[in-house]
Each structure stands twice: as C-alpha cells, then as structure tokens.
C-alpha cells in the first residue's frame, strides 16, 4: 500500500514539474525564485487547511464549515485587536487558535456525541458561522485602517529570508506529519477510517478521535483566519467563501480517499501546491481568470478517477460492491 501511495505522489510531483516547465516556456518570469516563493506563500493557508481536512476525511468525516470558521475567527480577532491595539501578536495568534478550536469543538461534539452525520452538522455550522460574522460586525467591513501596524505586518514579515507565513505553515505541516505518522493517535485515525468496526474491537474510542479531528480542523482554520485577514487586510462576511471546496479538492487531488482511511501528508501538500500553481499561473500565461474554476473542476474529476484506479489494487475484496458500499456514503 505504501508503495502504491508513493508512486502516486511521484506521478503528481512529475505532473507539477512538467506543468512548471510548460508555464516557464511561455512565461519565464513565473519560474524565477522570487515568483515561485510568492506562489508558495499563496499556497500556505490552503496547504495547512487541506492537511487538517485530511485528518477529518481519514475518519470518514467531512468538515464543510472550515472556511466559515476562518472568516469568523478572522473577524473576531480583527475586532478584538481594534478595541485592544496593545495586545501583542502572540496573544492574537493564541486567541485565533482558541476561537477556532472552540468552533471546531462544536462540530466535534455534535458529530461524536449526538451522532449527527458530519455533512449535516458542518453544513449547519457553516451557515451559522457566516451569519455570526455579519451580526458581530453589524454588517460592516473591516479594512486596513481598522487594523494596527503590528497586526497587519506579521504575516508579511520575513525571518531568515523566508516569509513568516511559510515558516508557520512549515511548523504546522511538520507537526501534522509527526502526528499522523509517528503517534498512535495519528495511526488510529487511519484505523478508524479503514474499518470502524475493527477499530472498535481494537479498543479505540470513536467519539474521542472524532472530537479530536474536528477540534484540530477548527484550530487550524482559526489560525488561518488571522493570517488571511491580516495578509489581505480585509474582514467581512464573504471572505474565503466557497474555499471549503477548494480545500477538499486539494485533498482529493492529493490522493485522499473520501471513503476514509487513505491519504498522506506529502500527497495532500502536492495537491494544494497543484491548485496554488494553477491559480497563480493563469494570469501570467494570459489565460482569462474565468477559466480557473472550469480547469480545477476538470482536474478534480481526473484526480478522482486516478484515485479510484490506484485504490483498486490496495485491498482484496470478495465482492466488488463492498468497496462501493463502504465508500459511497456522503
């Protein structure tokens, strides 16, 4: 199974390289180090959130509320920093993590203990979180003039020649890689998604792990909320609208199986990078940005087909329908 996954990542990596060469031939300016670094910076939030989403999908769940969580947390920290400009940046970051975590815990409690299907819960909280932004800000937009200098400059600042966004994402990615591959809790997520019944018989507590993944997903969304609002200098009810689907698309392109139990950190990162490059390259090679949505749709479809083919060899099933039955429940 490991070999088929790494082969898949190799193919995805090769596709990305070919794509970079092709774009570079048409617009050499795109493949200069500074331009590539800005593509990387643009992709960091997507990459972090795709990893958190992967942890949720691994347990056969889904979190549609992440983009709304991002926007709500971003709005709250912007409001807090406006009324209390003396707050240091570490306090703002911790606040964003905590708010995001709490919003994620609401999902987690409803999924784990009330046992409502995740798609229903997160569809509901998506609407609630989006609306709360409007209520909290009284429908107003917060722009750069409502945010203080320190608040705005942190995501744009650099350390050791790398933007702090890239450094933060690097730390988050490293933690996720360690968590999913090197801790028993992380491996348990794969076990739960692979076969929930077997996981119960092994003594794993399903509610506890479900709570954990939604809390994690919420915390990462909260952190991204501060970074997003400070980077783009704007907070209102529609920021990152529909972004949850881009995040899920990054996972799917990276080889995460929506049926649970399959997915790797490297694959998901490549999936996010793939989408990030497309989004940044279209204007450079003078393709109308209106094409972006259609292209990512086509890419998602190709990725799902590729996933289904590569997953075929990984399990021995007596009944072909059993895979379908196990994987199809939304």
């Amino acid at each position, binding site marked *: 199974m490991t070999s088929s996954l790494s082969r898949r990542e190799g193919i995805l990596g090769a596709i990305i390289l070919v794509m970079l060469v092709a774009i570079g031939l048409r617009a050499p300016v795109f493949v200069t180090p500074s331009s590539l670094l800005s593509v990387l910076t643009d992709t960091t939030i997507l990459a972090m959130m795709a990893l958190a989403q992967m942890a949720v999908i691994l347990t056969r769940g889904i979190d549609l509320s992440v983009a709304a969580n991002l926007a709500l947390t971003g709005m709250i920290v912007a409001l807090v920093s406006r009324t209390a400009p003396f707050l240091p940046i570490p306090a703002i970051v911790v606040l964003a993590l905590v708010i995001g975590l709490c919003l994620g815990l609401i999902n987690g409690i409803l999924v784990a203990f009330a046992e409502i299907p995740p798609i229903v819960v997160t569809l509901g909280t*998506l609407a609630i979180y989006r609306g709360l932004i409007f209520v909290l800000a009284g429908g107003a937009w917060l722009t750069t003039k409502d945010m203080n200098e320190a608040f705005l400059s942190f995501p744009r600042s650099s350390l050791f020649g790398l933007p702090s966004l890239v450094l933060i994402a690097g730390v988050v990615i490293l933690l996720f890689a360690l968590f999913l591959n090197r801790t028993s809790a992380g491996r348990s997520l794969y076990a739960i998604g692979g076969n929930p019944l077997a996981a119960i018989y092994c003594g794993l507590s399903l509610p506890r792990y479900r709570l954990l993944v939604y809390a994690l997903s919420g915390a990462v969304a909260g952190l991204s909320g501060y970074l997003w609002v400070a980077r783009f200098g704007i907070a209102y009810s529609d920021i990152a609208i529909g972004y949850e689907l881009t995040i899920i698309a990054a996972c799917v392109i990276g080889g995460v199986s929506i049926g649970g139990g399959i997915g790797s950190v490297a694959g998901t990162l490549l999936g996010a990078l793939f989408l990030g490059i497309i989004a940044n390259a279209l204007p450079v090679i003078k393709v109308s940005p209106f094409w972006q949505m*259609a292209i990512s749709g086509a890419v998602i479809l190709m990725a799902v087909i590729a996933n289904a083919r590569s997953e075929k060899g990984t399990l021995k099933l007596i009944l072909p329908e059993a895979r379908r039955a196990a994987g199809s429940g*939304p």
Partner: protein
Amino acid sequence: MSENDPARSVEIADRKKFRLADALLRWEVILVVLLIGVVAVNAAISPYFLDVDNLSDATFNFSEKAIVALAMTFLVLVREIDLSVAAIIALASLVMGLAAGEGFGTATLVLAGLVVGGLAGACNGLLITRLNLPSIVVTIGTMSLFRGLTQVVLGDQAITQYPQELQNLGQGYVVQAPPIGISFALFLALALIAAFVLHFTVIGRRLYAIGNNPIAARFSGIRVNRIRFALFVTSGFASGLAAVLLTGRIGSTRPNIALGWELEIVTVVVLGGISISGGSGTIAGLLIAVFVLGLTTFGLSLLNVPGIVINVLLGLLLILSIATPIVLRKFLTWRSTRKRAQNVR
C-alpha cells in the same frame, strides 16, 4: 459515517412495541409542530404574514429549489448526493440565453434548458456508476466544471434578452384567485408524482432497499447502478426545469445565478427527515420542510431581517431539529436500559 457503523446494527431485534413517545417523535409530527409554530409566531408578529397575495408571492422564492429538492430526496434515499445542481441550473440557463440570442422561440428555450440539465445529470451518472466513484467528490468536480464553463462563456457579462412568453412562464399564475404561481403548481404536481412513485410503486420500494443495503439490494436482483444513473439524470432534469423557471422569473442569466443553492437544497432535504445515510424518509416530510423553511424565510424578511442573519436561524433550525430527537431518543433508551437493569437486580 456514524450511522453506517456496522457495529451499531449487529443485533436483530423483534418488532418494537408501540409506544406513544415513538409516535410523537416521528419526524413528520415534529415538522408539523414546527410548521404550526412558525406560522403562529409570524402571524402574531406581522399583520402582513397571513395575506394571500403575500403568501403567493413567497412561493415563487422557494418553488424552484423545492422542485430540485424532490429529485435530491430520491438521491439521498439511495445514499447518493448531487452537489452540482446549482451549477447545472447556471449551465442550462446559459444555453437558454445563447439560444435566445440566436432568436429561438420559447418552446425551444424550454427544451434546451431541460436537455442540457438531463445531459449534465447523465454526465454525473456515468462517472458515478460506470467508474464506481463517490458521488460527493464527482459532483464537487462537476459543480466547478459546469459553473466554470458558464463563467468562461459569460465572463462578467449578463444575458438579459428573453422572450416575453418565457418570463410569463416564470412569473405567471395558473389560477388568479387564489393566486397560485405556475412554478408552485408545478412543484405540487411533481410532489404528488414523487410521493406516488416512492410510496406506492415497486420502484419506490427498491429505492428504500438500495438505501438500506446496496449489496443486499444487488443480490436481490435490483439493478442498483441503472437506478442510480436514472436518479442522477432525474436530478439533472429537475435542475433544468428550475433553470427554465428561474431564468423566466428574473429574466436574466448571470455567472452567479443560483449560487449556493445546492446547500439550501440539501438543507431542506435533511430537514425533511430524509436520512443522509440512506434508506429512510418520506415525501410528506420533505413537503412540510419546504414550507417550514420557505415560510420562516418569508416571515423574517417581512421583518426586514437581512438574508445572512436568516441563514443563522436556518442553520440553528437544521442542527437543533435533528439533534433534539436523537438526544431525546438516546436519553429514553438510556433510561429504559437502566430500569431493566434494576428490575433484573
């Protein structure tokens, strides 16, 4: 997902005894209570709520979504989902707009909308049944693809040249007094047909069988994939019909037409008591949920509550109305098992 856990259904119990609590906890009963509550509260707050003309006006705002929700009900029953419905509406409306630009008549436009919808649905169905792919991901993909194609063609432009007859179709009435809109009448007629098919025909029983256990259904000789395919085509057709009505009603096609409708449609289906893990739910439940959501939205907008705040309340309604019976039922079973344990002792 949680309700699919095989661990929860290993015990085969006898048929349950009738209990009043169970009957009162039936989904449709809860919905009716909710509906009565919504009407009572709104009528008490605003004198304009129980006005026939206002109510008739309100039906225009939810009938198109409700038509698609009927098709979505069938899909959710068999454990599938179609998130591309709103994008299909956009694509169908685009083709109608292009045809209208070429000077075609209303009949051709209606046909074009329906055919594009059906083809888009067939596209979903083929990918899902032939290649055995999960419908949630496929339809996220086709959602981007269909909406993306619409954006590519339209750019930031809008098509606003439509024949008057098409607008009459979207804005017109079947009966003038009491005023019943064409789209609302269509929805009611389709709901009747859907209820008949689902609750009184073999096909309907088969849908429940597939939703409860697709493998067992296949071994019982039900052509599961053929039915799945047909349901996706139906969902496409319903979206095409919604596109015809919506395009006629607002008289224009913009890139963001029907944006986000898929979530509202899934919400009404789930609120209607159709289990997202398949195999249970009724058309009656959906019908009442359509009215609950439609009238709540209408009542709140009479009070000048902004749309996004209405969404908060609808989200709360969705989660609370589903969580309450589950938590209540858990509490009841917990109490009865404790009582049984005490009796044994």
